[in-house]
C-alpha cells in the first residue's frame, strides 16, 4: 500500500532524510526506532505534507497515487493519519465538534453523506467502547489542558473515529504510565486490520511487547540502516544504537533476509 523510494527531504535548508526506502503492505505494522534527531518525525511530517518539509528527491506511492502531489488535507482524506508526537491545543474548539468536522470533511471528499450529530455521537460511543476510554475528554476543547497521556489517548481516539488506511504513530507511547500505555496498545491492536497499515515510531521496546510489529526498522541519519523482526527491538534495547555504526548493519541486513 505504501512505497517510499529514495526519499530525500530538507527542513530549514538542512537535509534530514537522505535516501529513505520503505515498503509497507496493507495489514502490516512496522516499528521505526532510532536515535533522537534521526528524522523519524520528519518522515511523518513529510508523509502528511507539512509546510516547510521540502522533498528534494524520491517518491512516495500510496495506494497507487503519488502522495507527494497531494495537499495535506487531501492526503488526510485519502486515509493518511498522523498521530502527533506533540498533539496541538486548539483553545475554545470543542473536541467532538472538531472531530465531526474532520470526519465529515473526509466523508465529503469520498462522496459519502455527512453524519449528523446523532449518528456521529453513536459512532463516538461505539469507538469509546472499543478503546475502553471514558467520554470526559469529549466535552473539552481540543487537547486544551490535557495531560500528556490524555493527549496521546485523544490521538488514538481520533484515529479510531477517522479509520485511516495508513496511520503513523509518532511516539504515541512516550510519557505514558503503564495503564495508559496498555490502553493505547489495546486501541492500536483493535484497530489493526487487513486493510490498514501502521507505522509506529517508538524509543521503547516495551511498547512492542503489546503491539507486535511485523518489522522493525532503525532510522539513523536520515536512512533506514537496519531492518529486522521484533527481536531487533530487543537487541537495540540492550545495546543501544552505537553498535550499528561498526559493521553491525551488514550483519543485520543479512539476518533480515530479503530487505533492501
Amino acid at each position: 500500500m505504501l512505497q517510499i523510494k529514495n526519499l530525500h527531504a530538507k527542513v530549514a535548508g538542512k537535509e534530514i532524510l537522505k535516501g529513505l526506502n520503505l515498503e509497507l503492505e496493507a495489514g502490516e505494522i512496522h516499528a521505526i526506532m532510532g536515535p533522537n534527531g534521526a528524522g523519524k518525525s520528519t518522515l511523518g511530517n513529510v508523509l502528511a505534507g507539512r509546510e516547510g518539509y521540502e522533498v528534494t528527491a524520491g517518491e512516495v506511492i500510496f495506494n497507487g497515487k503519488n502522495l507527494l502531489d497531494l495537499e495535506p488535507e487531501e492526503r488526510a482524506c485519502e486515509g493518511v493519519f498522523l498521530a502527533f508526537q506533540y498533539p496541538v491545543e486548539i483553545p475554545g474548539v470543542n473536541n467532538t465538534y472538531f472531530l465531526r468536522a474532520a470526519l465529515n470533511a473526509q466523508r465529503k471528499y469520498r462522496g459519502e453523506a455527512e453524519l449528523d450529530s446523532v449518528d456521529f455521537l453513536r459512532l463516538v460511543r461505539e469507538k469509546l467502547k472499543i478503546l475502553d476510554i471514558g467520554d470526559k475528554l469529549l466535552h473539552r476543547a481540543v487537547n486544551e489542558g490535557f495531560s500528556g497521556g490524555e493527549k496521546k489517548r485523544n490521538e488514538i481516539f481520533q484515529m479510531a473515529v477517522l479509520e485511516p488506511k495508513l496511520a503513523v504513530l509518532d511516539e504515541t507511547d512516550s510519557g505514558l504510565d503503564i495503564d495508559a500505555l496498555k490502553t493505547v496498545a489495546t486501541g492500536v491492536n483493535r484497530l489493526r486490520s487487513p486493510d490498514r497499515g501502521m507505522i509506529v515510531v517508538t524509543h521503547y521496546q516495551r511498547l512492542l511487547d503489546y503491539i507486535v510489529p511485523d518489522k522493525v526498522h532503525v532510522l539513523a541519519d536520515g536512512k533506514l540502516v537496519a531492518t529486522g523482526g521484533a527481536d531487533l527491538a530487543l537487541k537495540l534495547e540492550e545495546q543501544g544504537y552505537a553498535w550499528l555504526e561498526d559493521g553491525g548493519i551488514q550483519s543485520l541486513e543479512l539476518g533480515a533476509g530479503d530487505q533492501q
Partner: protein
Amino acid sequence: MSRESTIDGLVEQKYRHGFVTDIESDTMPPGLSEEVIRAISIRKNEPEWLLEWRLKAYATWLKMEQPNWAHLNIEEIDFQKISYFSSPKSDKDRPQSLDEVDPKLLETYDKLGVPLHERARLAGVAVDAVFDSVSVGTTFKAELRKAGVIFCSFSEAVAEHPELVKKYLGSVVPQRDNFFAALNSAVFTDGSFVFIPRGVRCPMELSTYFRINAAETGQFERTLIVAEEGSHVSYLEGCTAPMRDENQLHAAVVELIALEDANIKYSTVQNWYPGDENGKGGIYNFVTKRGDCRGDRSRISWTQVETGSAITWKYPSCVLRGDDSVGEFYSVALTSNYQQADTGTKMVHLGRNTRSKIISKGISAMQGQNAYRGLVKVSPKADNARNYTQCDSMLIGKKCGAHTFPYIEVRNPTAKVEHEATTSRIGEDQLFYCLQRGISEEDAVSMIVDGFCKQVFKELPMEFAVEAKALLEVSLEGAVG
C-alpha cells in the same frame, strides 16, 4: 504556494454589503455652523431647549481639539466638508408601518440579508431601523407598549417623552466629555430611545439595524437607554454600510442608565466598510459609549464584535456608582488590510463591592493594527472593588500588529485588580493539525478564530452569536458554509 500567502488570500475578501441604494436624498450642503445646527433643529421640529443644548455643545466643541493620543494613523478630518443632515425623501411623509416604507429601502435590507419583517417576527425581535439619519419602520410597538416599554426613535422620544429625554440626556456622557461627544451633541440627527419602567423585564430583545448611506454624510447617532429599578433589557445593535470612496465619519454617543437592581445588556455586531485593500474609503468610527450603574446592585454589560471600519476608536465604559454594581466588557475586534482599531474599555469603580470584568480578544490580519487600551480606576471610597482583565491577541500573518495598554489607577488598598494578557500567532501547528485531519484551510482558520473568540460569543444572544460568527468568517475568508 506558501502558507503565508494563502492565509492572506483567505483573509482578503470583498465587502459583501458594498452597494449604494439609489434613493434621492434630502441632503444639506456640507459645512458646520450655528446656522446648520439651527436648520437641523427646525427640520426636526425640535423644542427650544434642545436647540439651546445643541448650541451649547457646539460652543464647547469649537474650543476643543481632536484627540491624538490614540494609537492610530489618521489624516486630519475636515469638518467643513461633511454634510450634517440627510434623510430619505419619503421622510416628509413618515411611513406608519412597513407597508408604507419605500420598497427600495426594503430591498436594501433584503440585500443585506435583513428581511426586516420576517426576521423580526421569527426572532421575536423589535426592529428600529435607522436609514441614514431618520428612523423608518418600527415594529412590535404595540407589544412593547403593553409591557410599558418605550422603544422609539430619538426624535419621537423628544416629541412624546420630552421630560424623560431632558432628565437623562447628557447625564452619562456630558457634552464636554470628548471632542467627538461634543460634536455629536451639537449635530446628532437621530437614534434610539429605550425606557424600561420599574420592575419590568423587557419581553423581547430590542434590536436596531442601521447603515450609513448618503454620500459624504456623517452620521451622528444618539442612543439613550434608561432601565428603572429592577428592570431588565437586552439591546442589540448591528450595522453594515455600502461601499464608497470617501471616508465617512461616524461619531455616535450611547448612554445607558441602570437604576437600582436594573440590568442592561448591550450587544453590538459591527460590519462597516473597512476600506479597500489599500485602506481607502473605509468608515471612521469614533464612538462614545458609556453606562452608568447608578443604582445599587445594578449591572451593565457590553458585548461587541467589531469587524468593520477603517478606523475604530471606541471605549464602551462603565461607571460603577452604586454599591455592589457590576460592569462587564466582552469584545472581539478584527482588523485586516489597513484597518486600525483602538478600542478598549474603562471601568470606574466608585461604589463599594463593585466588580468589573474585561475580556478582550483582538485579531489582526494582513496589515491590520489592533490596540487595546483599558483603564481600571478604583476611587478611595470603593472598598473591596474587584477587577479581572483578560486581554488576548491573535496575529494572522507577519505584517499585522497588536498593542496592549493597560492603565490601572487604584486609590483604595482593599481593591483587587488582576490583569492577564497573551499574544499568539495563529499557529502553523494548529493549522497543520486541522489539515492533517482533513479539514480545509478555510474551515481551519475560522474554527481556530471562532475558538479564540468563544468566551465573547457565548455572551451574545443566540441569534446574534450566529451572526457574529458568520460575520467573522466572511471577514476572514469569504463565505464559509
